[in-house]
């Protein structure tokens, strides 16, 4: 029998289910229980675009060192979906375990000698112990959670407390959940050797961290930034941004005296209307945002061009999913980068922000509103499904009460009075922003906002020089925003001492949710003797540090989740970095990235250009020799 993983707080397991059977609560319960035991954990929900019936998986990675990227190496798979037995069994690592619902027949031919099969008749147990058919289906999931408590050594008291919090007031539900947990737990205790060789043990690695998804954090950012108008159209995976925003507003934005809402959330008839409402509200002086995904951005293009040209603040949260077209709505990608950077016809350029995890979703969400008003332009927050809909362990979100919104250059009636005359697009400051006025405050500040050719005074024009003066300023304004974009995160895995000191020949460059996988990959590579530097770009326009970093490396591998190397293209278009310094490493199948994929990608890239790699790395490290062929 091959050796099993004997790691404490260092393993991964996967739960295979049928969509719509209520497995989410069982999986969430497990994830949260591990988190509360103080153990770093991450969960990825790999779900189909379907209401009920198709296969769905949930992966949980437990890693005492805080690695959170997707694991592709499963020590344990809980197989609750007979339709996917073959596939699930294949994915168990040698020496691993398969916990399956033995009510369903398992083809003998699928058995593997290097995997331990643990059968529990979950469905049968639930049929015997529960009367209602819906309950019998739902409780199967809680029952496997019960078995996992025994097999992985999850603390009962933690689970107990979670159940109390979830069902505290619903006594009947609390009791049936308890019963189901106990069914699974007792069966495992009586029939298997518990715990498994790999298991959990309480530690204190989570400190005061929180478990939160990116969409909730984004909504919190909008709340704290003082956004009052939100307009949206439902779309996966962005819907929960607005659902969260709504529930937060209901909680924190009711006028205590009148009970009336200090917010307006409008469910628009489509995405075109949603962004139109945001622009109308921004024009009138409110902080406003919409949330959508790629198909919505496509529809919003025309309006984004208007807001760019007429210089109206607007915040758009794009929780990216897999395109093109309808694509794979419940899978993740980073493929809206170029369409957002240059959204709309004509010469347009937008400010983009790329959060990597929920804590940045919160921070960048607030920042989006400040940048939109400071630069009087749309700002697009590019999140994605992995960040937005999965739970992440991140530092506790904090708030500085000294924060005040940066409203940018808005003239008050008093300031207007001092002016001889007001012209919307003249008198620019160092950031190429011209002062604006809000409707309703002063007869002197009136002007006509237009998406047609206008001159410095705001009047209609078709004169080349007048038109150019305005669009040139807009280009300068976009560039001037660079120092206000969160700077790239730059780290070195290279030794600063001894022989290896000096120039690092290669780097891994990425953005957004690839962060965890790429950093972990760099650590692994470093251990293999292939050290590289790291840069995570956090927004567009790029800061000066981006170009400097790229130029300082012979080769920069740009890791991104799209087919057409969109980040690499944007870098090539918007910087002077020589093209030969930029290489692509692409992952666009729709699932979150794993460190192993990046390591493999880099080794194979280096292997393919052997001579170059040898020169660049100062001699091919031993670890690479296997990857050369």
């Amino acid at each position, binding site marked *: 029998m091959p050796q099993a993983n004997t790691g404490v707080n260092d393993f991964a397991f996967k739960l295979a289910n049928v969509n719509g059977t209520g497995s989410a609560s069982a999986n969430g319960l497990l994830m949260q229980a591990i988190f509360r035991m103080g153990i770093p954990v991450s969960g990825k929900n790999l779900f189909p675009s379907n209401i009920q019936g198709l296969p769905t998986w949930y992966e949980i990675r437990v890693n005492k060192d805080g690695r959170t990227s997707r694991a592709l190496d499963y020590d344990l798979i809980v197989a609750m979906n007979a339709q996917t037995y073959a596939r699930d069994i294949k994915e168990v690592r040698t020496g691993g375990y398969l916990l399956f619902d033995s009510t369903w027949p398992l083809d003998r031919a699928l058995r593997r000698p290097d995997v331990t099969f643990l059968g529990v008749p979950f469905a049968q147990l639930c049929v015997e112990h529960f009367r209602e058919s819906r309950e019998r289906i739902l409780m199967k999931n809680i029952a496997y959670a019960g078995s996992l408590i025994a097999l992985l050594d999850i603390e009962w008291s933690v689970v107990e407390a979670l159940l109390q919090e979830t069902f505290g007031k619903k006594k009947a539900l609390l009791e049936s959940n308890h019963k189901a947990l106990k069914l699974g737990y007792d069966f495992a205790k009586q029939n298997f050797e518990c715990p498994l060789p790999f298991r959990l043990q309480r530690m204190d690695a989570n400190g*005061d961290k929180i478990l939160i998804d990116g969409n909730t954090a984004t909504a919190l950012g909008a709340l704290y930034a*003082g956004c009052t108008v939100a307009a949206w159209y439902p779309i996966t995976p962005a819907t929960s941004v607005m659902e969260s925003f709504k529930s937060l507003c209901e909680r924190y934005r009711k006028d205590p005296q009148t009970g009336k809402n200090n917010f307006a959330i409008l469910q628009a008839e489509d995405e075109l209307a949603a962004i139109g*409402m945001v622009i109308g509200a921004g*024009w009138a002086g*409110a902080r406003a945002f919409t949330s959508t995904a790629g198909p919505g951005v496509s529809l919003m293009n025309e309006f984004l061009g208007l807001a760019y040209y007429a210089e109206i603040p607007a915040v758009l949260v794009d929780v990216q999913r897999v395109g093109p077209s309808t694509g794979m709505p419940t899978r993740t990608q980073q493929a809206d980068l170029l369409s957002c950077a240059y959204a709309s016809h004509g010469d347009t350029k937008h400010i983009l922000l790329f959060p990597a995890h929920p804590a940045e979703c919160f921070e960048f969400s607030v920042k989006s509103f400040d940048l939109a008003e400071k630069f009087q332009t749309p700002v697009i927050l590019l999140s994605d499904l992995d960040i937005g809909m999965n739970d992440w362990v991140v530092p506790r979100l904090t708030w500085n009460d000294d924060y005040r919104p940066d409203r940018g250059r808005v003239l008050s009636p008093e300031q207007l009075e001092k002016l001889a005359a007001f012209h919307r697009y003249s008198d620019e400051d160092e950031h190429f922003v011209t002062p604006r006025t809000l409707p309703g*405050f002063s007869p002197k500040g009136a002007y006509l906002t237009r998406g047609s050719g206008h001159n410095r005074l705001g009047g209609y024009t078709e004169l080349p020089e007048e038109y150019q003066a305005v669009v040139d300023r807009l280009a300068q304004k976009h560039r001037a925003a660079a120092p206000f974009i969160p700077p790239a995160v730059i780290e070195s895995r290279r030794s600063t001492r001894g022989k290896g000191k000096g120039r690092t020949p290669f780097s891994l460059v990425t953005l957004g949710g690839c962060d965890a996988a790429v950093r972990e990959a760099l650590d692994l590579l470093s251990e293999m003797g292939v050290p590289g530097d790291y840069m995570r770009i956090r927004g567009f326009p790029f800061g000066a540090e981006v170009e400097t970093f790229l130029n300082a490396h012979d080769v920069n591998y740009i890791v991104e989740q799209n087919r057409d190397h969109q980040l690499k293209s944007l870098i090539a278009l918007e910087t002077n970095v020589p093209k030969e310094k930029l290489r692509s490493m692409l992952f666009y199948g729709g699932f979150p990235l794993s460190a192993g994929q990046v390591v493999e990608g880099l080794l194979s890239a280096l292997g393919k250009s052997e001579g170059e790699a040898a020169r660049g790395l100062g001699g091919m490290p031993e670890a690479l020799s296997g990857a050369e062929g």
Partner: protein
Amino acid sequence: MPSIAKPSAAPSGSQTNDLGLTVRDYEGAMSTLCAGCGHDSITAALIRALWELSIQPHRIAKMSGIGCSSKTPTYFASGAHGFNSVHGRMPAVATGAAAANRGLYYIGISGDGDSLSIGLGQMSHAIRRNVRMLYVIENNGVYGLTKGQFSASADVGSKLKKGEENRMAPIDPAFLGLSIGATFVARSFSGDKQQLVPILKAALKHRGLALVDVISPCVTFNDHEGSTKSYLYTRKHERPVAQADLVPPAEEILAPIGAKGVTTIAMHDGSLVRFSALPEGYDPGDRAKVLPYLQEQQAQGLIPTGLLYLDESVPDMHEMNNTTDTPLIQVPFESLCPGSGALEELMEGFR
């Protein structure tokens, strides 16, 4: 949108309104529309209505989309902010602006191309939302700015210059509005200022979306025999069925109510709309009766005009959303941001 400033010489001895402003103060730039365009007459009626109601020009927000009609905001109330947005999408922009600042008078100016083709969806949803605004459709049955193509309100059988005939039934904004719950539906004729001005005044005082369809002949492309949107046809077939007058709150006590044939509906701000000259059995507050009446008139080739339907009981967008009475843009940041203490508490829920 080309515009030319007006000459500075003002006509002497102009009357002033309650704010001490003259009609001239409600004007805008010189129109660059074709001479004789119906839209310019609508502009004149708007100027008159705004002046008569003594609305401060800077408390007006002029919203439009794209097209001949959408140039109108340039030609009135130069002291007001205007927004010439994108084709057919004025309603969304107006909705967002109204959501942010409920304290302004929103005037949306659109056309049959802008509102009945590309913008049909947005117009319908603004109606359903009952956004408090005056929504004027300058309806000429033709695309003027792109030189004479059919619009969605073009008559069946009307012909392009090269002879192509329109076979599709026109979309009638009044019918549409009535069928999807509009709370104020009026139709008028750009050449009938006497009727149009009171309608616009009542519309500006309405608590929700006031849809005013104005037949506005296009002198360049659609003012010919066979067009029901021509000057001649409209003059001949216009049937003022519901002459309305707005009685502002200040005059309420003096209003002679109760005369035979007069119907009065109280508006949200206390002013009254007084209907007179109503056909027998016509009740401008009964949607079920208005629609068949209009259909019957249309079948005879007649164009019933006037304030056709009014309902002040339906809540507007803000009432439906329970929004605070203070315009959202004036709510201080301190009451919007829950602060660090609340965030700390919230974080416990993510532990």
